[in-house]
């Protein structure tokens, strides 16, 4: 895992990116989760998760495969609703509004909580239409000019505009893997969510494409609250302000990223981040 690219800092170099540390690590709480249990049928996949995720920071979820970190991410925008036989206990609140309240409009929730998936999933439409999709279905704009402006703005935010501006009407499926993933980020940004959930967004990409995604995450944090699931501990160390370590469906430790990687409180966390287990 280490040394994938010469620009990757070593674990000891986790001390934040050359003085660009965020203004504040105690920004207001955006997402508050209290004693959350999650079941696939009879199987309990998450066990008593409580966590508070702060706004305009990057929070990374790390842990071995099957530890529940992706499942947990998907409870935050109720993406698990579409899987039959799943059940949730406990509470998730975004800006103090309960997410699992029966009166909550799931469509409105997902508009506020965007998501980028592990495997890039552009629609088999043109590049332009992929980004415009969220605007169209939510009726966010009917003006052609505004539509084009917002598509461009989103593509710029996702750092892919220069590469695609001359072929906006070509199929999105013709793009490379890294470009497709940045297009999916642009698509998620187009409806201007407040929170961006990223489920291993770079796991299928090469080191250079990965680096671009990471730089992008760093920039996007100014505007969005970002939660990223990653297998890659160096990536968590590089991009996040807070890190949560999951193990067998439980949240073992949650703290500032620099602390998690240099002086974790739990022995299990230390073993995992130093590669002695998992």
């Amino acid at each position, binding site marked *: 895992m280490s040394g994938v690219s010469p620009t990757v800092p070593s674990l000891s170099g986790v001390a934040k990116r050359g003085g660009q540390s965020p203004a504040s690590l105690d920004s207001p709480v955006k997402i508050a989760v209290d004693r959350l249990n999650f079941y696939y049928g009879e199987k309990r996949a998450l066990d008593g998760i409580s966590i508070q995720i702060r706004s305009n920071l990057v929070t990374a979820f790390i842990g071995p495969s099957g530890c529940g970190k992706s499942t947990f991410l998907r409870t935050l925008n109720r993406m698990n609703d579409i899987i039959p036989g799943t059940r949730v206990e406990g509470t998730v609140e975004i800006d103090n509004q309960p997410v699992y309240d029966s009166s909550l409009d799931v469509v409105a929730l997902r*508009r506020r909580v965007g998501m980028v*998936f592990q495997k890039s*999933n552009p629609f088999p439409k043109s590049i332009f239409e992929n980004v415009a999709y*969220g605007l*169209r*279905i939510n009726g966010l704009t009917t003006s052609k000019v505004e539509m084009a402006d917002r598509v461009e703005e989103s593509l710029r935010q996702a750092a892919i505009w220069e590469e695609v501006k001359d072929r906006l009407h070509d199929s999105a499926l013709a793009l490379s893997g890294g470009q497709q993933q940045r297009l999916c980020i642009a698509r*998620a940004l187009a*409806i201007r969510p407040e929170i961006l959930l990223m489920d291993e967004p770079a796991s299928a990409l090469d080191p250079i494409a990965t680096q671009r995604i990471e730089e992008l995450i760093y920039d996007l944090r100014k505007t969005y609250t970002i939660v990223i699931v990653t297998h890659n501990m160096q990536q968590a160390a590089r991009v996040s302000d807070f890190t949560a370590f999951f193990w067998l469906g439980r949240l073992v430790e949650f703290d500032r990223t620099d602390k998690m990687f240099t002086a974790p409180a739990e022995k299990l966390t230390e073993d995992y981040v130093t590669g002695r287990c998992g």
Partner: protein
Amino acid sequence: MSTRTLEWIIERLLFLCAALSVLTTAGIIAVLAFETYEFLHEVPVLEFLTGTEWTPLFANQRFGVLPLVVGTMLVSSIAMVVALPMGLLAAIYLSEYAPSGFRRIIKPVLEILAGVPTVVYGYFALTFVTPLLQQFLPSLSGFNALSPGLVMGLMILPLVSSLSEDAMRAVPRGLREGSYALGATRMQTALKVVVPAAFSGITAAFILAVSRAIGETMIVAIAAGQQPRLTANPFVPIETMTAYIVQVSLGDTPQGTIEYRTIFAVGMLLFLMTFGLNLVSTWLRQRFREEYA
């Protein structure tokens, strides 16, 4: 006998079995082609394809196949008007809405519809649907294009819904999740992401259904009448290509006469139409498979 000889015999036997069906098809096409060739010796191909009167069994013989083609198109169109929207909606329901347990039951039940003998559908059209429709549409003849068209639509509905559903289910789950994550409803996801992504597969299903409707025989032979006429009016008796072939085959038309050869010419035309449609359908489905390989 040595193992090698036995293997040799088995291989040849299996080859013969495979060859038999190919040869039969080739034989059918050869007979169609030969008789059509003989027919076209007596009737110019232009007159056959563009003539507007079809009276080979009357004293005043005319060999314009258009009334039969139009009759076929009329009934098939009515069938497609029923089968396409309903089949597509059923497929959307089965693929995007139905709980998986329910789908496992309902899909085979729907496919049983395709197993009902077409003669049953034919009498269903003639003795049930037509009298029923006549209560609302007094001008409807006892034989007409409307009623067999509707019933035929019902018959090919399972074909459309089943094949369309297969195509929609082959769309990766990630695309649906991408759409839901942007705040799309199920209907928006189904209509704007899943159906367009499955478009070539759904089109292939539609074309196969059209081909099936064009070739369908019993329903129209029983309920549509035997009057070749060039009309778009679904209320009056007409005759389709298939029904004409049945009519002549069942009658006492002597072999080798021009009247007898007409059925091969009509059959050849029918074969070319359905064969062309099937080719397009296969090509589309192949393209679809490549998209999500």
